[in-house]
Structure formats: C-alpha cells, structure tokens
C-alpha cells in the first residue's frame, strides 16, 4: 500500500475531468431542470471543431478558448431550440432528459459523418512529466487539473459574488419568485447552458490531449461524472465537484488494489447504492429535487 498517496494523486488528477463534467451537469440541471446527457457530446463536438482550427494553425491555447466558446454557443442553441420549446409539461424533467439523449445520438452521427470514427492525435498544451509521490504525472494532466481548479473557483466566484450569479442561484432556488423579482429567466438559462457546456469542453479538450480525439471521448468519463453527481446530489455544485474527484480517487484505488477489470462494476455499484439509500446524494443536504 506504499503507493497509496501516488494512486490518490493520480485519482484526483483523473477526477478533474469527472468533476468538470459533473459541475456542468449540475449547473444546467439547477437552472433548467434538464439532466443533460448530451453534455459530453457537445463538448466533444466543440473539440472536434477546434481540432480542425488547430490543424489550420490556431495556437493550442487559443484552441482551448475556442472550444469553450464553441461548446457554450452550442449549449445556448440547444437550450433555445430543443429545451425551451418543451414548455413545462407534467413530465418535463424526463422528457428533457430523453431529448438530450436524442441530441447525443445526433451529435454522434454528425461527428461520424464529419470526421469519421478513427481516433486522431490531439496536441497537448505542455509536453513532459513531473514526479510526485514517486509517480510521474504529465504536465498535460496537471494542467488539466489546474485549469479545472481555476475554472471551478471562477465559477464559484461567479455564483457567489456577481449579481448575475446570485440571480442564477435565486432562479435555481425558486424560478417563479425569480421571475416575480424581475430576473430574466431566458438569460439565466442561456448562461447556464453556456457555462455548463463550456466547462464540459475543457474536460473534453484535456481528455483528447491525454489519449486521442475520438467520438467516444466522454462516454465513460460521463458515467463517472454522473456517479459523482449522484454522490454529491443533483443540485449541489460543490457536491458535484467533490463527488467527481471522489469517484476519480475511488476508481483509481479500486483499479490499483482490487481489480483492473472490476472498475466499472465498482462505479455503477456506488451509483445504485447512493440512489437507493440516499437519493439526495451523500453530500447533498437541504433542498430536495425540483419536480
């Protein structure tokens, strides 16, 4: 067990992708009651688009910013054209979920047509590795974790300190009251989708640099992100982030000490247990789900 610190560090680093996706899921759910299953695909599509720009000569770090903005705009378009027209019928929450599943299928098909299914090599922002607790971590992963941390702090600041961020939290708390106070719900929804999908693009970007750019980039990270979301509770942003990192660590610890072929089993078992025993999430206290 001597390498436990190393395994934990490595888990935290891989967990940053799950935490980012989880945060995106929660931001979107809180503001528009939509569990967005297409969030990873939107991020991946944006990275595919920017990969084309990078190949054409765009600097890589600008590529990251372009990916965030592209994904954010895709998010806004999705909310406007697919989610808002659903209105708020009785089964809205579930129908919106099914719509995003449909969107995921569409994006997949689109990437297939546009870029094929063969993985493409994707450049990293910084080459090289660094030693920590006796294990090596690539700068790419460290940077990913660092940018994830910065993004999360920025988002926390945005929601805590800016009037618009407070207005978004207010909308999540009580959308009707928010409207009564004069908060523009359409703008809140748009910004939430922009932020949610934008941070998903950060996750996709670094996942691609880590291995390769392919349409299934976020498939298994997304399930881990959902595990994190369930751990933290669907409505808690801090919970989602902590949940995402926790899953990253658990997954690594399980992979290292239990079995490399039972890792998914472990993750799904955690989801089922949490959903059954504590539907509000282990960390999610307070408000129940809005339905």
């Amino acid at each position, binding site marked *: 067990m001597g390498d436990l610190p190393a395994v934990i560090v490595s888990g935290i680093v891989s967990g940053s992708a799950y935490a980012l996706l989880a945060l995106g899921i929660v931001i979107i759910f809180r503001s528009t009651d939509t569990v967005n299953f297409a969030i990873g695909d939107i991020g991946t599509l944006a990275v595919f688009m920017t990969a084309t720009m990078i190949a054409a000569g765009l600097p890589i770090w600008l590529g990251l910013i372009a990916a965030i903005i592209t994904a954010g705009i895709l998010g806004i378009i999705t909310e406007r054209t697919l989610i808002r027209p659903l209105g708020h019928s009785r089964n809205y929450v579930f129908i919106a979920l099914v719509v995003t599943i449909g969107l995921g299928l*569409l994006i997949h098909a689109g990437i297939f047509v546009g870029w094929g299914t063969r993985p493409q090599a994707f450049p990293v922002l910084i080459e090289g590795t660094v030693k920590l607790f006796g294990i090596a971590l690539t700068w790419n992963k460290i940077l990913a974790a660092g940018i994830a941390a910065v993004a999360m702090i920025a988002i926390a600041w945005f929601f805590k300190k800016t009037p618009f961020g407070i207005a978004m939290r207010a909308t999540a708390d009580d959308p009707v009251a928010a409207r009564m106070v004069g908060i523009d719900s359409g703008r809140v929804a748009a910004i939430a989708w922009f932020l949610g999908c934008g941070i998903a693009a950060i996750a996709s970007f670094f996942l691609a640099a880590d291995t390769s750019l392919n349409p299934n980039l976020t498939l298994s990270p997304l399930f881990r992100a959902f595990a994190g979301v369930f751990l933290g509770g669907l409505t808690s942003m801090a919970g989602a982030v902590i949940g995402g990192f926790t899953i990253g660590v658990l997954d690594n610890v399980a992979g290292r000490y239990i079995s490399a072929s039972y890792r998914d089993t472990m993750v799904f078992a955690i989801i089922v247990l949490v959903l059954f025993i504590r539907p509000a999430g282990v960390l999610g206290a307070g408000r129940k789900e809005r339905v």
Partner: protein
Amino acid sequence: MSPANMRRLGIVIAGLALAIVVGPYRMVGDYVQFIVAALSFYFIAVLSVNMLAGLCGIWSLGHTAYMAIGAYMAANLTKMGVPVEVIVLASIALSFVVGYILGLSAGRFSVLYFGLLTMALALAGTEIIGHWTAVTGGDDGMKVGKAITLFWPQPIETKNAAMICVILATLAYLVGEAVSNSQLGRRWLAVKGQRIASMSIGLKPHVENATAFGMSSAIASLAGIGMAFSMAYIDPVAFSLDSGVTLIVGTVVGGIGSTLGAVVGSAFITAVPELARDAQAVANFVYGGAMIAVLLFLGEGIVPAIRRRIRHWKGRDRVNTNVPRQAVDAQAMARLVSELMPPARHTLSLNAVSVQFSGLKALDDVTFDIAPGTAVGLIGPNGAGKTSLLNVLSGFYKPLATTTVKLGDADILALPPSGRAALGMGRTFQHAELFPELTIRQMLLTVAALGRPLRRANQIALNEPEAVAERIIGGLGLAPYADYMPSELPFGVQKVADIGRVLAIGASVVSMDEPFSGLDEHERSELRAILRGMRSAGVSILIIDHAVQEVLSLADKVVVLDFGKMLATGEPDSIRRNPEVMKAYFGSSHHVEPSPETSAKESANG
C-alpha cells in the same frame, strides 16, 4: 360477442396466422423470418416500457435487465433440455419478483430519479453479466441452443424461432390490451394521475406501482426469450444502456400508453437500422431526429397524437353545451345516496388533535365530534389550520401522540391513508382532483369496483360496478359528460363528479375540502341541494370552506379555527354573532393601538 372480444379474437387469429407464415413450412425467406422475429421481440420490449410509462408514469431506462433475465434463462435452461413453455413461465416468475421488489420503491422517487436509478441498475446489470461468466459467458456472450417445445417433436431451428417470437408477441399484445382496458389499468392510471386522490379511494400506490413494474418486467423477459432463440447468440451488448435507450425511442416515437403505439414504435426501431444498413450514421440521425421531433411537435407520440386529432376532428373532445346538465334536487340525491350506502352509524370523534411542524403548532388541541348524519362546518381564516386537519383525517400528516381520532371504536390514526376508505371514510377535493386520464365513467367504474366489499358488508343490493356507475351518472345528471376526460369538462361538473367518486366508494363519512370554491351561483345552489340530500340520507359531512356564508347556512354545527386553535364552536347562528369570530376575520381595534385613521373611523362610528 362484445367488440372487445372480437378484437381479441382478431389479434389471436392474426398472430397465429403470422406464426404459421414464419414457421417451419418455409413460406417466407430467412430474412423475412428474422425481421418478423425482431419486430416481435422489440414489440414485446417496447410494450413493457410503454405500458409502464403510459399507465403508471414510471419510465424505466433499464428494462433491458429483464430482457437479459429471459435471454440468459433461455440459453441456460435450453442446455438442460427444458422446454420453452417452462422457460417462459420461469422467467415470468423470476422477472415479476425482481420487478415487484424494485417497483415497491418507485413511489419513493420522482420520475427522473427513478429513471436514473433504473439506468444505473441496467449498467450494473451489464457489469454483472460481464463478470458472471459461468451463467452468461461473460462479455463474449454465449450460444443459445435450439428451442425445445412440448408441442413439436423436433427442436425448433433458429430461423423458425420467429414463430416463438410471434406467439409471445401475440400473448403480450393480449395482456397489454387487457391490462389497459381493465380495472387493473384504470387503477394504475388513477394512481399515476392523482396519487393522493387514489389513496382516498383505498388504493395503495406503492403496491399498484410494484405490481405494474413486476408485470412489465415479466413481459420484458419474454422479449429476451424471443431474442435469444431467434439470434442463437446473446451477449451483454444487447442489454446495454444503448438498447435501453432504443426501447425509450420506440416508446416515445410510437406514443405512450398505447398498445398500437408500441407496434408503431417497435416497427420504427426495427426498420430504421435495417433500412440504414448501407449508411451507418443514418440510423443515429433518424433515431435522434425522430425522438426530438416527436417530443417537440407531437409530445405524446405518433399514435396518441393521431387519436387526439381524430377525436378532435370528430368533436369528441368538446362537450355539447346544448344539452344542459339536468339539475339534481335534494330528494333525488337522498334517494341516490340511500341506494348506494347505509346511513352513517358511528360518530367521528376528533380528540386533542395537535400537529407540529418544526416547533410550530399548526393545530393545537382541536376537539370535536361529528355525529352520524350531521354536517359540521369548519371555518377560519387562511393559515388557521383547516388543511392540516384535513390532512390528519386523510392520513397524510402524523399528529402528536396525544391525538386520537376514532370512528366509533375504530382507531383511524392506526390506518394508512388507503385503509380509511374501507371504514366508509371519503373525501372530496378543492380542485376536484379527478383522474386526468380516465373518463368520468371509467373513474366511477374503477371506484365502484373498489367499493364493492364495503357495500357487500353493508348488504347494499346495488353492487355491480357497472350498475353503480350508471346509477351515479344518472343520479348526478352526469350522463352528457360521462365519456369525457376531466380536462374537457367545466369545473362545476368536475366537482360534481368528485362527489360521485365519494358515492361510488360507498363512503358514509365524507370530508369536503372547499366544495364551494370555484363554483358560480348556479353551481353553488346545486351543490347545496346535493349536500342537503346527502345529509338527509344519513351521510356525516365535514365541510371545510372559506365560503363562510355557505357553511353557516348548511351546517348543523360549526367549528372555527384560528392560528391552529379552536376559537369557537356551536350552531351557525351563535357563530354568526360571536365577537371572537368577528375579530378573527375583521380584526378588532380594541386590543391593538389604533392608527390615527382607525381612531377617526371609530369616533365616526361611535
């Protein structure tokens, strides 16, 4: 033969004919056999998801797990020489039990959470399949032997397994039709539409959900059996989340709550990949696109949308306003009630009713009786605790331990909400809360069937659900509206139908939550007649209403609540003159320091 039976016979004949066509006489090519087989087992699977979503409002993303139960049972039991018929029974039994247990918890969660939970279970299930190599062949899958049947000397060739699929699909179709047109399906729709109102007629929502989930799971396992025999090879991918999503696509596209919708949906999910074989991305484009388009533009799916259009086009969704509702007078009402229920025999006594929410007493020591056959009015300003009291009576709030509520000798508080109907307790709702997916007639039929034991125990002659429903429809003048959905009816009619529901369950002690709210003058006068009729037939009534004047004119006794305490109780006239009551409603300037304006007013009055 009734039209329903004709239809069933038609389905059986069509199913058998199709089974023969795709059977061993080589009447069609292998490919057609296979498409028919795929269509059949997808139909079964979509039907199972569709039924659950349509009748219970429970969405399962994980029904593939039950398909897996059927499929792996087929693969393993066939190896041991077990005939198909036994496999079918065994997997129905196993899936029902597993589904029932999971279904029990459905009520604990919202639709969304339960959907996600079933998804997580399916993912975990795929993992179990992947690792339980001895039984499932692991991630690589396993070969399925040829089906052995009791009715055929040789094992059935893989390609002829289409026959098995068609027969299973026919069975599933019959079960699906039967459930949605029977008491069972109507009960599920009642629970789905109005959970609280369904408990007031004696239904236990968690049991209904569990039964539905169990049945749906059992049906899904049939799809797995069909799939196993016609594929001859099964592996976990067939039961992955992707497949679960495909079933949801089929359900959404075809339209929920419709057997025919399941046919359309399964045809869609079978045909798209077959037609799109040469263009790999097309299937996903069509799936995703169709799913979104249907949800955005049709909402309820193809078949229900078409039905609604037809109904609208034929004008069946609009009540003919030229036929005025025939008014109900008190005598006729009293006759109706006395035919349906015995007079109340026991006093409902509420003793020291106290309810506390996070330290605040919403009700404090409220004590009064409702003598058999009397009407008691409960009034008080907003926030006085009237709703809390009703919730204690209905079983949704747990009062403090000192509280007792008894009907005769029976301890009401010991019973769950659904147990109170059996004692003859009923309630009506402020917003009628009719079951949105049942017509008035269907609702009354359902409730009348649930009220059977109570009427039998009281030796009421009129007890056939159909007869009871007809009598109520006639007695309450609901005939022109009986075949409409609640949303298509004027609110006044809905409220009368809500009273019909209480009559159908056979309640003789009835709590009424704001019966007068939302009614116009004409409707109010009719409601007065109905209430007078009920009372003169011996029904005990608790009227909780803000329409103080109505309560005062109807009730034998009035209880006034204010800030959770009993402010006054007595006959209407004494209440009308009671200064405490005046103060509660209009305030009194005697105890608080008057503002300048009010002082001026007082001096002007003085």
